[in-house]
């Protein structure tokens, strides 16, 4: 039993020792990630996601999917080439450690639109996987306070089968959701926090 317990302490599901936020910060600086995603991980660029406070596992998985050509999203496929697995984990640790916040240019809430979005979120059970505060967990991203234009773009991509996650769950969730519904959902999520 003692042996097992010792092994447990050393090997969490995602060993912490493999990730180093400081190394990740240096790498993000060197690679110019902040040019699009924001110096503090809060994006001010249209259709480009904020990464601050994203679960490390989510960032890692997406970076691997970019690098392996399993998710196509220019310019990330090219930018991810040559990154070692450890570097990807460092980047993920860096962004996961940053404090999430709404983008500076976030518009004022539209109460009626947000209400429709919330109803849709309830119907689609978004909070089951993304958690009730939409902060994400494991491979499932934080969507609270994400850029509204990026959410609209991404949700439409899932609906139109232009993108998959590590599985096809989001494609199934979004099937048949209209553009107007996506706009409401994106607005609601973007206004969280």
């Amino acid at each position: 039993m003692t042996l097992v317990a010792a092994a447990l302490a050393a090997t969490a599901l995602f060993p912490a020792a493999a990730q180093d936020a400081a190394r990740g910060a240096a790498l993000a600086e060197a690679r110019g990630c902040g040019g699009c995603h924001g110096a503090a991980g809060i994006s001010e660029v249209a259709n480009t996601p904020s990464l601050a406070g994203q679960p490390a596992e989510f960032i890692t998985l997406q970076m691997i999917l970019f690098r392996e050509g399993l998710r196509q999203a220019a310019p990330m496929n090219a930018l991810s080439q040559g990154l070692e697995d450890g570097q990807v984990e460092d980047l993920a640790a860096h962004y996961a450690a940053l404090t999430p916040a709404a983008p500076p240019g976030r518009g004022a809430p539209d109460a009626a639109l947000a209400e429709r979005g919330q109803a849709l979120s309830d119907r689609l059970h978004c909070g089951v996987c993304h958690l009730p505060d939409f902060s994400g967990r494991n491979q499932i991203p934080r969507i609270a306070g994400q850029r509204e234009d990026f959410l609209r773009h991404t949700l439409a991509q899932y609906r139109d089968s232009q993108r998959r996650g590590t599985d096809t769950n989001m494609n199934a969730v979004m099937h048949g959701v209209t553009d107007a519904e996506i706009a409401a959902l994106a607005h609601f999520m973007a206004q969280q926090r």
Partner: protein
Amino acid sequence: MMRNTIAAAGFLAALTCLPGVIQAQQPAAPPAWAIGREGSGMAGTLAPHAPRLTVTPPAQLPLAAIRLPQGFTAEVYAHGMPGARMMAEGPNGTIFAGSRTIGRVYAITRNPDGTTRTRTLLQGLNQPNGIAVLDGNLYVIAINRVLRFDNIEQNLDNPGSGTDLTAAFALPTEEHHGWKFLTTGPDGRLYTNVGVPCNICDFNRDTHALLVSFRPDGSDRRIEARGVRNSVGMALHPVTRELWATNNGRDWAGNDIPNDTLHRVRRSGEDHGFPFCVGDWADPGAPSQRNCSEFVQPAALLGPHVAALGMRFYTGTMFPEAYRNQIFIARRGSWNRERLNGFDVVVAKLDAEGRVTAIEPFLEGLRDDANQRFLGRPVDVHVMRDGSLLVAEEQFGAIYRITYRQ
């Protein structure tokens, strides 16, 4: 260059099979794995565990946690292969391992000093989980894609893009439960599965929830078994040549129902009951209710939600005689259960008539009950020619080798 070509082709294949997903779903339906969750009474936050897609350093592998019966020892055979899953061995001893999310096929060779070398042989494929070697040729089944790589062990550094047999096999295109297990029979045929494209639903019982076999060129499809929800493990008995298979039970029926099952196929084409029955349990979620005595009964119950996957008969001589022709089964471990179950390797003990008399633990220690965490997910087993047993562990991308010494 070749790897890039394959990556691009794999992506196109992924795109072309997505319409199949859409057809299988109703508008605004919950994700396929979540159908049946409403009203199940089970924790709403239960969701599949994601794999780790980055290399785990060998020092962080949970080797010290592994427990085996007296006389058995585990060592790390190969590591640094994120998502490594189903295994097959070439005539010269190369071990091939497929994967799911990361889209790779790995090749593991032995160096003269006994250490191993791993290569990423193929990449960019859509869940290339089906792996088999027949007459020196490697067969890979990704979702809706069948490829053959001739004389693979002579081409490990330059496998090329393979011969595309997709049209000949004409497998269904759905993504959900669309990944394959693949093995060979002594009859020279390829044996695989067609999973059901949902948790439980009304589906075509002539095209889905099947075990099927083909000639290696994809011709002469034969239904070996019907009503098998999603088998990701099968093997032919070394003496009787009967096909045996593991099967994943459905989700959201409760923490302890139904069981995953082991199936013995005595006659090709018989009906094993899905979606109507698991053993004598008539599933209330089935499209209609049927008498369970209509169906072939499972050879054994393997535990609820354990995800019983790769299975092989022990045909070696290194292990004690009691293991000969018994079945090693990798249980990847549960997600649709409030307390973890599985995350181990068990042995199905058979008597002389091929009846399962017990399911015994073999490899344990990867499930941490106290903290409800897991240290690894065994997904396949493989008997090497020296009688040692390989165990592929998906979460940290390692293959362990188990040996026995009196």
